[in-house]
């Protein structure tokens, strides 16, 4: 059963290019070309390369190298909640 669920998730998996508009809403800048670093395995790469799971109640972005969760984003009517503990850093161009 677990395997079925995983297969389904993988089938629906996108990459963070698909949430570029949401990034822009939250951060106010283009983020898909911005670098980040996975707090779990240390892989560095552009935000656009993160694996995106967008079909749940929130959005989960995972490291393409180790698949650890980098970012979780939830939207409520009056706020965004961003859990970024899986990233060593996020870079916002100024």
């Amino acid at each position, binding site marked *: 059963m677990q395997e079925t669920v995983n297969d389904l998730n993988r089938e629906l998996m996108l990459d963070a290019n*698909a949430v570029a508009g949401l990034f822009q809403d939250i951060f106010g800048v283009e983020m898909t070309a911005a670098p980040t670093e996975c707090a779990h395995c240390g892989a560095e790469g552009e935000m*656009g390369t993160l694996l995106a799971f*967008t079909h749940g109640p929130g959005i989960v972005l995972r490291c393409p190298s180790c698949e650890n969760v980098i970012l979780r984003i939830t939207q409520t009517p009056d706020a965004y909640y961003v859990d970024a503990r899986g990233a060593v850093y996020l870079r916002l161009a*100024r």
Partner: protein
Amino acid sequence: MRQPLDWQIATVKAIRPETAKVKTFTFSLPDWRAHRAGQHYDVRLTAEDGYQAQRSYSIASEPERRGEIDLTVERIEDGEVSAYMHDVLTVGDRVELRGPIGGYFVWDSELPDPLLLIAGGSGVVPLMSMIRHRAATGNMVATRLLYSSRTFDDIIYFDELEKLRGNGHGLDVFHTLTRGQPEGWKGYSRRIDDRMLKEVIKPLRMVPQVFICGPTLLVEGAANTLVRLGLPAAQIRTERFGPTGSGTGG
């Protein structure tokens, strides 16, 4: 650089069928901005009761076309946005759009490297924007498109690609059909594999800039093979197309 990204009301200027399941929508934009080839727009629909659905679609047209963009959209069964666009939208209708969005999966015609473009299904759309941008700017950089479709009738932009490949400006196009081929088919007839990729990249003497767009399996398979063949991972950019469109949910 902070850029406000506001929703604007675009008007449907034209709708053109590409295949049985794919249509191209031309939108006139009051607040048009030149995009970078590979970027996309978000499309937002609002029902009378306030329910909103939003999806992200790649731009098919070249940035040189002022005031309007083409979005090529595959109709997904049960797709809230794509089904509405295909079945309900008509010329003159107004739709909320915002963009252009994205900075990772983009190609600028100033880049000197040869181009290797790999597409699966409607993943060809952002690559077509690159090919049209290349043609519009007179760019002659050696470019090879490897495009996987299910059947001949599923190939998007076939005629235009034939015309562009024949004009002597260094574009080569390779089709592969995975679910059936017409009689006398001269292209490939299988899923993209090591041998195919080797044959396609061989004439590119320099290390190419690679863009791969399609379903996850195709994207990961092609990217892994290219790395195995010795291409630096940093030269490979990927974008996954999901079965519900590259959407942000909702």
